[in-house]
């Protein structure tokens, strides 16, 4: 029953190669940001540890669960369209979009609480990184949702098929990247100290 288990290790990257150039570029940007955070922390350990405690880790936790699940739904959507089930693909994508929306709402609530406490980019080095990283990622979620919305619409409109599913894979790959980056971000900014 596991058709995908047949391992064929010679395929190209899923989706349009152009998105992969973009994904790799984005990963490099985030990688540099993560490294900058880590090295900035190494000269201000006390400040980072103290400031990190003021974050509500539960938000980060919930958002990780949401984004991981959303990413899973997109993976299922890709499998559905490969099996030729366009509506199922659309449903999975719509569910993934809904979770993306939940992520944004939760993050906005968290941002609102931060701003209510008077936290800004200029408060201290930790909050600068915290806000810059999460805001930058937030924008990526918005971007990813815009892409997924187009793909979802096309999936429902029957524009994809078992033979032609590059669009789903392209949008999906970007969304998984957004998920991957958040997984590292969550551990780095919310947890590791």
């Amino acid at each position, binding site marked *: 029953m596991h058709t995908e288990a047949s391992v064929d290790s010679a395929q190209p990257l899923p989706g349009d190669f152009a998105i992969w150039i*973009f994904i790799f570029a984005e990963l490099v940007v985030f990688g540099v940001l993560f490294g900058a955070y880590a090295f900035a922390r190494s000269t201000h350990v006390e400040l980072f540890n103290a400031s990190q405690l003021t974050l509500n880790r539960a938000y980060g936790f919930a958002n990780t669960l949401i984004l991981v699940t959303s990413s899973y739904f997109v993976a299922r959507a890709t499998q559905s369209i490969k099996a030729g089930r366009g509506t199922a693909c659309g449903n999975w994508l719509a569910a993934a979009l809904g979770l993306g929306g939940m992520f944004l709402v939760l993050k906005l609530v968290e941002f609102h609480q931060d701003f209510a406490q008077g936290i800004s980019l200029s408060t201290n080095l930790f909050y600068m990184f915290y806000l810059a990283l999460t805001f930058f990622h937030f924008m990526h979620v918005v971007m990813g949702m815009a892409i997924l919305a187009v793909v979802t619409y096309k999936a429902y409109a029957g524009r994809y098929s078992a033979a032609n599913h590059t669009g789903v894979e392209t949008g999906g790959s970007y969304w998984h990247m957004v998920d991957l980056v958040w997984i590292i971000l969550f551990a780095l900014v919310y947890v590791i100290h």
Partner: protein
Amino acid sequence: MQQVFTKAMARNIFLGGAVFFLAIYLALSYDTWQRIPERDHADKMTSAVLRGKYLLDSNDCIGCHTVNGEGAYFAPELANVYKRRGPVFIKAWIEAQPTGVPGRRQMPNFHFTQNQLDDLVAYLQWLSNIDTNNWPPNIQG
């Protein structure tokens, strides 16, 4: 062969990326705009400071000097000249130009009145108090 790298996709990335990063830049600029007045003590920009600034601009001082490192590299930094030289020296120096020393770089005489010199000094004093993240590294600018 399957088209794995389409022009349409590349174009969408270009447009999407441009809008995306422009949005981020605008959000950051909004925050910067809120911060600048406290960093440069905008409340201390008196009318004398503004008149002094107009003199500095309309005589193209940054055609030779730098202000916070921006301008030309022909003559010394002006943002910290107030702290380096003090008001009395600055006025005397401007009035004594050009030195006429053979071969030395020359600064024109701008025929400023005493009031204008006071305005210029007021502006240079305001400049010297901007929070520039501790730049320049030392008083020589």
